């Protein structure tokens, strides 16, 4: 199976960003998940912060983020993230986290504090969060929604049938859909987003069913990408999708009613997040027809 080729080009902005996040002690999912887009994103001064440490309590079988017993929460982390956003001069920030099943609220309050701190220190900044499912705790979810993110992402990751194989046993396909649906109920103008990794063994029809389920949950932005096995410990790649297949799925997704679709082998949830948000806002307002993205 032919692998994707990545040109390793580390420019000055990449190295500066690396210094800033290291000196502030903030983890990034770009590093934690060996993201293939790190050269492009960091090279243009953009990173996705990963709060609440670098160790996840869940054992999803597609993910390279460290698993185990996590570190205690750093109460100053919200301010460190806010400071990093300021130092990097970002007007759009993406924040995700590890899962923290060890915490009573799954880390929802820490998420909310981080969103508020970033917005307080950086007036006008847009904040996109990629959140865990908080084990379906809708009060925890509400805390995050009312703290004022501009985009709330939560990934179903795969189709219904493969969810028990691909994701940790505490995750659930319907639980994730409930999180996305409820977020819209808490704030109907909140833009929501979700990702599906392709190539884990799903059928074409199952992908379309999953897209339909996401639309039924009110999701605005869809990301479709190719699963790339990070190490022999994760699930093997069952299939590599052709670029034309991504295009076809993108067209189907637009017909299903998504406001914006990113369908590309290397796309990841936070990839070109600012552009996706701006396009989605325009289309929701009815100012621009859907056209090929990415």
């Amino acid at each position, binding site marked *: 199976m032919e692998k994707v*080729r990545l040109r*390793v080009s580390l420019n000055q902005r990449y190295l500066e960003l690396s210094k800033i996040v290291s000196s502030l002690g903030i983890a990034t999912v770009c*590093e934690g998940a*060996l993201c293939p887009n790190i050269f492009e994103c960091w090279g243009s001064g953009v990173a996705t912060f990963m709060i609440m440490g*670098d160790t996840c309590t869940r054992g999803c079988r597609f993910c390279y983020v460290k698993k185990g017993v996590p570190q205690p929460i750093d109460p100053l982390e919200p301010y460190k993230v806010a400071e990093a956003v300021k130092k990097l001069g970002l007007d759009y920030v993406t924040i995700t986290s590890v899962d923290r099943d060890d915490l009573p609220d799954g880390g929802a309050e820490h998420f909310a504090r981080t969103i508020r701190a970033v917005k307080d220190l950086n007036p006008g900044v847009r904040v996109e969060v990629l959140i865990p499912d908080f084990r379906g705790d809708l009060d925890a979810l509400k805390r995050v929604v009312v703290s004022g993110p501009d985009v709330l992402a939560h990934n179903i990751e795969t189709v219904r049938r493969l969810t028990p194989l691909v994701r940790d046993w505490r995750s659930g396909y319907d639980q994730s859909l409930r999180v996305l649906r409820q977020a819209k109920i808490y704030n109907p103008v909140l833009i929501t987003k979700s990702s599906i990794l392709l190539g884990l063994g799903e059928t074409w029809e199952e992908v379309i069913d999953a897209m339909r389920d996401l639309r039924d949950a009110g999701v605005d932005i869809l990301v479709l990408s190719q699963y790339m096995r990070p*190490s022999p410990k994760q699930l093997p790649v069952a299939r590599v999708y052709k670029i034309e297949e991504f295009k076809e799925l993108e067209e189907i997704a637009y017909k299903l009613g998504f406001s914006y679709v990113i369908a590309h082998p290397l796309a990841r949830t936070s990839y070109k997040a600012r552009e996706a948000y701006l396009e989605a806002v325009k289309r929701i307002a009815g100012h621009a027809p859907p056209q090929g993205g990415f």
Partner: protein
Amino acid sequence: MLEEIVRIPEELWPRRGGWNGKVINILKKPGDRVSKGDPLVEVEIEKAVLVIESPYDGVVKEILVPPGGSVSPGSGVVKVEVFGEG
């Protein structure tokens, strides 16, 4: 003449060290001229093939890890005789 070693950058996924890979292709041979930014080495990791660029202008002096050899962040792969200033 100043000699420099082209390494697998440690700044690549900087705080997620533990990965390793296999050199699958050296794109220049000893004696070849190389410019800064030229693709020089291809390294296969589980997730992808990394194309490592030359950080120097110069002449390839020695291949330190031949195709098939294993590498990790910081590993030196190619020795380059670097052109001097002016």
